[in-house]
C-alpha cells in the first residue's frame, strides 16, 4: 500500500530529519505512529501523502510516487492534519462540494458517524468549536472510504466521551482493504485500537511490528514469581517494577506502549538487539 525507501528529508539542509528511512504499510491494519516531539511524525505523514517532497529516496502509494499527486491516488487517500481547516460552509455544503472527489464516499455512513460523535450537520463549520470541527472532519475522513487513511493526532482536542466515540467508529471502520495510520502522543487513548506500532526516532524507523509479534517474543508486566531472567528494560510503578522480559515460553501479555516507547528511545541495547529481527526494515 505505502512503500518508503531510503527517504532523506528535512526542512533545513543542515538538519536532516530523516536519513535513509524505510517503511512499508499494508492493508487491513491500524498503525500507531509514535515518536518524541520533533521526531518527525507529522512530517513523515506529509511525505506519505505527497505534501512534503523527499530529498532522496522514494515514497509511493499504490506504486505511484506520492509527490506526483495523481488524482486517482488522491481520490483513494485521506489525510486529516492535526489542525483541521474548515471553510465557512455548513456541513451539508462541505459534503456537496468535497465528497465528489471520493468515489466511495458514503453519505449514510457520514450521517451515522456524525450522530455518534454528536456533531450537527446543518451548522456552519467555521462557527463550530475546534473539537466539533475536528469531529466533523474525522467523520468525513472515515466516510470517504479511502483505502489509505492518515490521521495526525486525531484525539487531540477531543473531550473525554468523544475519544471513546472515536475509537468506536474507527474500530468498526477498518476493513481488509483499508490501511489506517494514526500518529499520537496519547498512547492510552489508542493502545487497544492499533494492531501495529511504528516508532520514528533518531531520523529513522526503529520499530515496525505488530503487537502480536511483540508479545510472541516479549512479555510485558511485573516479574513472575518464578522469573529467573533479568528484564530487558524496567521502570518502577505503584504495582511494583513493570518490565519487558524475554518470553521463551510464549506467555501472552499486553504490550505496554509507554514502556516500549521509553525503552526504545532510551537506546536500550538489550531490547534493540532483541527487536532487531522484528525491525527488519532497518536493514533495507
Amino acid at each position, binding site marked *: 500500500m505505502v512503500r518508503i525507501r531510503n527517504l532523506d528529508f528535512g526542512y533545513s539542509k543542515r538538519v536532516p530529519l530523516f536519513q535513509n528511512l524505510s517503511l512499508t504499510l499494508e492493508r*487491513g*491494519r*491500524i498503525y500507531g505512529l509514535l515518536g518524541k516531539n520533533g521526531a518527525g511524525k507529522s512530517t513523515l505523514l506529509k511525505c506519505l501523502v505527497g505534501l512534503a517532497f523527499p530529498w532522496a529516496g522514494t515514497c509511493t502509494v499504490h506504486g505511484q510516487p506520492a509527490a506526483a499527486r495523481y488524482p486517482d491516488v488522491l481520490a483513494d487517500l485521506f489525510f486529516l492534519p492535526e489542525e483541521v481547516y474548515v471553510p465557512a460552509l455548513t456541513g451539508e455544503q462541505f459534503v456537496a462540494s468535497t465528497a465528489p472527489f471520493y468515489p466511495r464516499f458514503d453519505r449514510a455512513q457520514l450521517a451515522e458517524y456524525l450522530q455518534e460523535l454528536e456533531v450537527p450537520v446543518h451548522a456552519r463549520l467555521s462557527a463550530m468549536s475546534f473539537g466539533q470541527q475536528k469531529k466533523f472532519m474525522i467523520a468525513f475522513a472515515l466516510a470517504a472510504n479511502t483505502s489509505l487513511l492518515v490521521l495526525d493526532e486525531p484525539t487531540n482536542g477531543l473531550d473525554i466521551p468523544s475519544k*471513546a466515540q472515536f*475509537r*468506536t*467508529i474507527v*474500530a*468498526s471502520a*477498518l476493513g481488509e482493504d483499508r490501511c489506517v495510520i494514526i500518529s499520537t502522543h496519547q498512547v492510552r487513548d489508542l493502545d*487497544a*485500537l*492499533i*494492531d501495529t506500532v511504528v516508532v520514528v526516532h533518531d531520523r529513522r524507523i526503529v520499530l515496525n511490528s505488530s503487537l*502480536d509479534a511483540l*508479545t510472541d517474543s516479549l512479555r*510485558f*508486566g*511485573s516479574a513472575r*514469581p518464578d522469573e529467573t531472567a533479568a528484564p530487558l528494560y524496567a521502570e518502577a510503578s505503584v*504495582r511494583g517494577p513493570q518490565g519487558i522480559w524475554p518470553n521463551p515460553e510464549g506467555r*501472552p*501479555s*499486553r504490550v*505496554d506502549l509507554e514502556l516500549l516507547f521509553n525503552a526504545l528511545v532510551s537506546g536500550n541495547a538489550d531490547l534493540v538487539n532483541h527487536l532487531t529481527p522484528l525491525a527488519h526494515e532497518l536493514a533495507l
Partner: protein
Amino acid sequence: MEFNENEAIYLQIAGYVSEHILRGSWPPDDKIPSVRDLAGTLQVNPNTVMRTYEHLQGQEVIYNKRGIGFFVAPDGPRRVQEQRKARFLQQELPAFFRTIRLLGVGLPEVQQRYDQFLAAHPEPVSLPQA
C-alpha cells in the same frame, strides 16, 4: 470495556465472550456479534477480536459458519466452564495459596470462612452443570 493492564487484550475479550456464554445470554447455536460489531462495541481493533474468535474456535467454544458468522458451540457453556476451572486451579489458586502463606492464614480458617459463606449464600452461585 475496561481492560486490565497486563493481560493480553484478546484473552480479556475471550473472557467477555465466555462470560456471555456461561450466563446464557448468548445461548448455544445462537449467532454471536460480528467481528466488526464487537470491535465497535469494545472499541478495539477488529484484528484483535478476530484473534479472540479464532482462539475460542480452537477451544471449540464457538464455531464458524463460513460467510454467515460465528455461533456458540452446542456444548460451549460446558467447555467454558472446564476452561475457567482449569485456569482457576492452575493460576488463581496458586496465587491464593501464596497470599495465605504470606499472611499466615491457615486452611482451617479458610474452611471455616467458606462454611460461613455457604451458609450466608444458600443459593448455589450457579455455573451450569455439565
